């Protein structure tokens, strides 16, 4: 039902240039996409919002190319993933270490509440690809084949990232006395 609704809204945007329909899509997915970026940037709210904004604008300009081969949310995640990796590539050319990595490593808070700090400390233990796979799989409950579509990686590579990420994160959690309760 949700998927059909999404397609109807996409059609309205593409055919009628109905920005109100696009507004409905943004409101529906803003939390998911901003959370995706928050997890990738280890809680940098400002950067996450900028990247999420860029994602929705790119989605709007390329909406005609949405062929309904995957769900709208998967398509949107794919754009978000590309936006994030374009950003990383751009940053890595100019500087070595990201500010969010430094902040997470030294636990200096960046405008977010303390209760969410631990999750970013945990995610900081993972490489970027591992972090993407782990958060999409465990937090967003996406199956491996969808993660493969979003990241453009073969399913086997996604499984490898998941396995390595799980091992690192579980070790970190146990070392820090987290019992899952």
């Amino acid at each position, binding site marked *: 039902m949700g998927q059909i609704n999404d397609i109807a809204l996409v059609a309205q945007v593409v055919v009628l240039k109905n*920005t109100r329909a696009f507004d409905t899509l943004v409101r529906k997915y803003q939390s998911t996409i901003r959370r995706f970026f928050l997890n990738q940037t280890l809680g940098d709210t400002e950067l996450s919002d900028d990247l999420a904004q860029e994602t929705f604008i790119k989605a*709007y300009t390329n909406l005609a190319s949405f062929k309904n081969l995957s769900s709208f949310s998967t398509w949107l995640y794919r754009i978000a993933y590309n936006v994030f990796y374009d950003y990383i590539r751009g940053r890595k050319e100019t500087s070595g270490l990201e500010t969010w990595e430094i902040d997470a490593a030294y636990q200096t808070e960046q405008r977010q509440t303390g209760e969410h700090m631990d*999750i970013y400390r945990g995610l900081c233990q993972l490489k970027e690809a591992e972090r993407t796979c782990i958060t999409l799989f465990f937090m967003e409950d996406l199956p491996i084949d969808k993660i493969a579509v979003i990241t453009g990686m073969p399913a086997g590579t996604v499984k490898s990232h998941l396995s390595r990420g799980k091992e690192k994160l579980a070790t970190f959690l146990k070392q820090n006395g987290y019992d899952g309760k």
Partner: protein
Amino acid sequence: MMENDDQLIKNFLLAGKQEIEDNGFSRRVIRLLPQRAQWLSDLLSMACTVACCILFYIFNGVEVLFRTINETITSQAYYQASNISSQSLYLAAAVLILVGLQRACSLKW
């Protein structure tokens, strides 16, 4: 053991999962959509066109344009008429027709 780890990680991540309030985010996105920028650009182009038309009218552009074209043709005809052969005229016409056709074919209908 592996399933325990899975559950441990799932619990940890789900505990940190947050629903983010919109707080004006959607409004900012809609405001930044390129269609609006295009609309503003069109408005600016329209304003410039209107300004140009007004200036053209104020400074009697039609008369100035007509006089300039007239003078150019007259002077060219006076100085070069003897040098123009019918062959070069045909050649120029052919080139103009060819360029015109090419332009017409490249238009998106």
